[in-house]
């Protein structure tokens, strides 16, 4: 099976996001062929080069997102009119009410929702036929279309206030966001030749997948470990409200269109899943696939009988304000009142200047809360709280850090997917964590969870575990079993393997078989190979590609040509 792996600023670049996951996926699925289509995010990223690729990667095709290549094509009258129509539709779709708007729950008509998609594919077809889209997206025609859409009745309130610089800024952003439309990836020997597009993130990476689906009917699988739309919202800019409103509308509609067209969407945790559902993803398409981690590093610690110091708490992670070590120190103060022999080891290093400042702050707080203690009057004292880094003589590896304590504590106030918690679970350690991010989902019932910013509750939970070694052991064993079941690399790879097969079995790519002279070979694909209509019950949303339109379930696109697939003659034969 040929998989088109679509990435943006990720694999195979050395500094890419989630490259380790992609690398494991590609290496783990050696039975498939991979073609990597990578969008690079900056010139520096391109200069840093690629990580070594396994042999199952057939080829890597890259394109820059950070620069535009104007091919100098000037549109004729007809192409200009076509562009103005499509762009006008796009602008109008952005300026009218947003999907999932609470003011209009569920009453966004299909035609309205399709407007954005139609405009997008119209622009893509124009770029494919004529080229020159980069120049056109920057032209006065585009700005005029935006202005008209903003001034139209029924436009968003923020959009109505857009002034000329705002319009220019929006046009520039849209040009940047729509750069994947101008790529030459959508030919028969490019994305047209793969069986499945796997977008490793939403947003720009999914755009080529959408177009491959539109042009060639290639099914699209979208994996989002971080929801792209949310990243867009969090990347706060000082742009005027009109610009932010229109761009948020664009990214929201792009996400909705991606979720609508994708065959399967795999969020990385329940939080991402909630966002995707909120943005219009169909529940039946969602399959949560947890990120996999290498469990072998922790096998020795996890399988050995508990040998750790029974009075030691361990915190492992990157030191930064969101980890709320202050709260942990206060909780530890509560613990010390009850169990004076307890020690706390904080293992980690700051990643940025802010983290360094925070570390200093925490050290000062620890020194003030807990004076140094000594065994007797003649020995040198030591602080019960120690700040350490991995790689030193005491803690050579990460697993040793977890092994050093009886209980692992997580005190964050903000957390995504808590990796240190999963590592502690692999090590078979009992854990106490705050209820943030995906913690509850990860820990299940195999550890204690307390509210964030509640040092007293955190302290009490730790005390409960410190005083009960049996419970500690039971929870640790359960945690390790759960982690091995859910969070291993093998689990991740197997899940994707299954999803690939599932998608392809529902949407097989039927290629036109050519004979030696290049003529289509009639009856090369027997009619029995294609069963029109639904195979399973009405719940199955994924419908055989090339099947009759009534079987597709989805609203028929108004005003757009039928996607030109290779499969047409075979389909005709099947009918």
């Amino acid at each position, binding site marked *: 099976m040929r998989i088109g792996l679509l990435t943006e600023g990720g694999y195979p670049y050395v500094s890419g996001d989630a490259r380790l996951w992609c690398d494991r996926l590609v290496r783990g699925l050696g039975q498939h062929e991979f073609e990597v289509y990578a969008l690079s995010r900056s010139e520096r990223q391109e200069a840093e080069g690629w990580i070594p690729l396994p042999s199952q990667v057939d080829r890597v095709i890259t394109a820059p997102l950070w620069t535009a290549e104007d091919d100098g094509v000037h549109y004729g009258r007809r192409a200009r009119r076509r562009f103005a129509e499509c762009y006008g539709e796009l602008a109008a779709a952005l300026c009218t009410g947003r999907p999932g708007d609470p003011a209009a729950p569920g009453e966004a008509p299909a035609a309205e929702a399709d407007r954005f998609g139609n405009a997008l594919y119209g622009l893509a077809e124009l770029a494919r036929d004529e080229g020159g889209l980069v120049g056109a997206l920057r032209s006065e025609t585009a*700005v005029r279309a935006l202005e008209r859409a903003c001034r139209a009745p029924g436009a968003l309130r923020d959009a109505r206030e857009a002034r000329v610089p705002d319009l220019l800024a929006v046009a520039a952003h849209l040009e940047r966001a729509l750069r994947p439309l101008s790529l030459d990836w959508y030919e028969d020997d490019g994305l047209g030749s793969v069986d499945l597009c796997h977008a490793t993130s939403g947003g720009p990476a999914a755009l080529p997948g959408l177009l491959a689906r539109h042009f060639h009917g290639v099914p699209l699988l979208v994996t989002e470990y971080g929801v792209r739309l949310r990243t867009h919202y969090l990347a706060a800019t000082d742009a005027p409200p009109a610009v932010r409103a229109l761009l948020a509308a664009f990214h929201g509609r792009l996400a909705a269109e991606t979720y609508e067209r994708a065959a399967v969407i795999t969020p*990385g945790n329940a939080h991402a899943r909630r966002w995707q559902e909120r943005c219009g993803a169909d529940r039946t398409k969602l399959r949560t696939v947890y990120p996999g981690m290498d469990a072998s590093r922790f096998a020795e610690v996890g399988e050995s009988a508990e040998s750790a110091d029974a009075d030691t708490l361990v915190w492992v992670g990157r030191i930064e304000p969101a980890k709320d070590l202050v709260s942990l120190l206060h909780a530890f103060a509560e613990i010390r009142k009850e169990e004076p022999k307890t020690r706390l080891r904080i293992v980690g290093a700051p990643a940025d200047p802010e983290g360094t400042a925070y570390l200093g702050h925490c050290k000062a*707080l620890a020194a003030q*809360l807990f004076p140094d203690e000594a065994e007797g009057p003649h020995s040198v004292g030591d602080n019960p709280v120690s700040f350490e880094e991995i790689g030193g003589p005491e803690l050579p590896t990460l697993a040793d850090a977890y092994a050093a304590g009886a209980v692992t504590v997580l005190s964050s106030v903000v957390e*995504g997917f808590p990796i240190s918690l999963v590592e502690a679970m692999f090590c078979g350690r009992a854990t106490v964590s705050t209820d943030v991010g995906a913690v509850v989902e990860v820990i299940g019932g195999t550890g204690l969870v307390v509210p964030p910013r509640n040092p007293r509750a955190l302290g009490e939970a730790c005390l409960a575990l410190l005083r009960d070694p049996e419970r500690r052991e039971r929870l640790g064993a359960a945690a390790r079993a759960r982690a091995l079941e859910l969070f291993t690399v093998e689990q991740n790879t197997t899940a994707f393997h299954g999803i690939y097969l599932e998608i392809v079995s529902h949407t097989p790519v039927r290629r036109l078989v050519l004979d030696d002279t290049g003529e289509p070979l009639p009856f090369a694909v027997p009619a029995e190979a294609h069963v029109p209509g639904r195979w399973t019950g009405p719940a199955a949303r994924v419908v055989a590609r090339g099947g009759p339109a009534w079987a597709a379930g989805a609203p028929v696109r108004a005003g757009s040509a039928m996607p030109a697939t290779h499969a047409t003659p075979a389909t005709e034969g099947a009918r």
Partner: protein
Amino acid sequence: MSGLGELDRPGAPGGAEAWDERSGEWVAEVGGADAVPEGTAVSAVSEQAHAPAPNRRPTPRRTAADPVKALMHRHRELCERAVDPLEIAAGLEAHGVTDRTATRFRHRDVFSLAEEMYARAAHDEETAPRPTTLTPTRAHTSWILLTLLPGTLCAATVAALRLTHGQAHAIALAVGVLAAVLALRAALTRGPLAPTNGTLPGSARHSSGSRAWTCWLVAYALLGDGLLEAAVAGGPDALPGASADSSWAVATAPVLALSLACAPAAWCAHLFAVSARRRLDTSRGLEDFTASARPLLLGAFALFLSALSALLAVCGVVLGESPAYAQTVTLGALLLLARLLTAHGFTHAPAILLGAAAAAEATALATVFAGRLPGCGFLATPVETAADTWGPGTVPTLVCSVAALTLLVHATRTLTRASAHAPVDQPC
């Protein structure tokens, strides 16, 4: 570590104040103090740690009747700037608000909480004053010196040519021309006359053509009139400058004036760009901008023409030559408009018109020489008649004025568009 956790990690609370504030808040709760100034958190905690009240329950706080209002107050900046509820939801999550927290505010999840906050904030926002955005003008002044360079070098070359003889004369000529051309190139790659997006392959193709045609047009201004006059009179007998009484006269004053005019050209272009950008900020719509930009363009153009005329007059007096006003001013106008269009990203029209003008001048010269062939005398008639009647300067005047007028019409349509003045790079 796989690094995937980073992808979904909500952004950390912005800035160091987030944890200061938070820890301060907690300190206030435990210590019973209502207002603990930031930065004194550590000492306050240490006092509390030694305080003799081990088992005191924290005093309940935040007992307001409307909990969402307090939340909105805490995140008022987020609520004010949000353009839709999802933005508030993302911001709240980045500050650690989860679905479980949202239930405290009697909401099912963060999304519905964010919707309420967005709906309630939107009412207050109506009256909020809109921040005025003034794009700061960058003060790069190095280009001012660069624009003076071609004129200075050209003047030095002319002076050297007047003072030297023999081999030194030839060397001065070669060095001077080379230096002037390099300086001109440097002046055109920096500052307001530089193309804003010179990396585009299409513009590169056009710009090399434009450059060649510009050189040809300037060379014609230097040598063309003399050659045409000599040709009409039956010459030329020798290369210009070969002998003192050569019939092929060289017009240095126009070229010197044109090279000196680089500076006013750059200033006019700068003036136009800056004032257009200011209009961009103040105008309400695209039509509005176009209407207000047209006088700016024409004003800058007129300013340049008058500066060029003044320079021409000065050069004519200093060099003791006749300042060929008509042909030089029209050529200057043509070059300025071509450069302005190129600088704003419109490379197609200038390349065509410069090429057409150069071709027309070359054709005029060629017809005169072709007229000497047997049976082809009629070819030379139009140019000879014109040269005899109004002087040899008629040809470049006519050609350049037609080309400049065409470009002027084109520029008033394209350079007055808002998209021509879009800032090049904007943060995402």
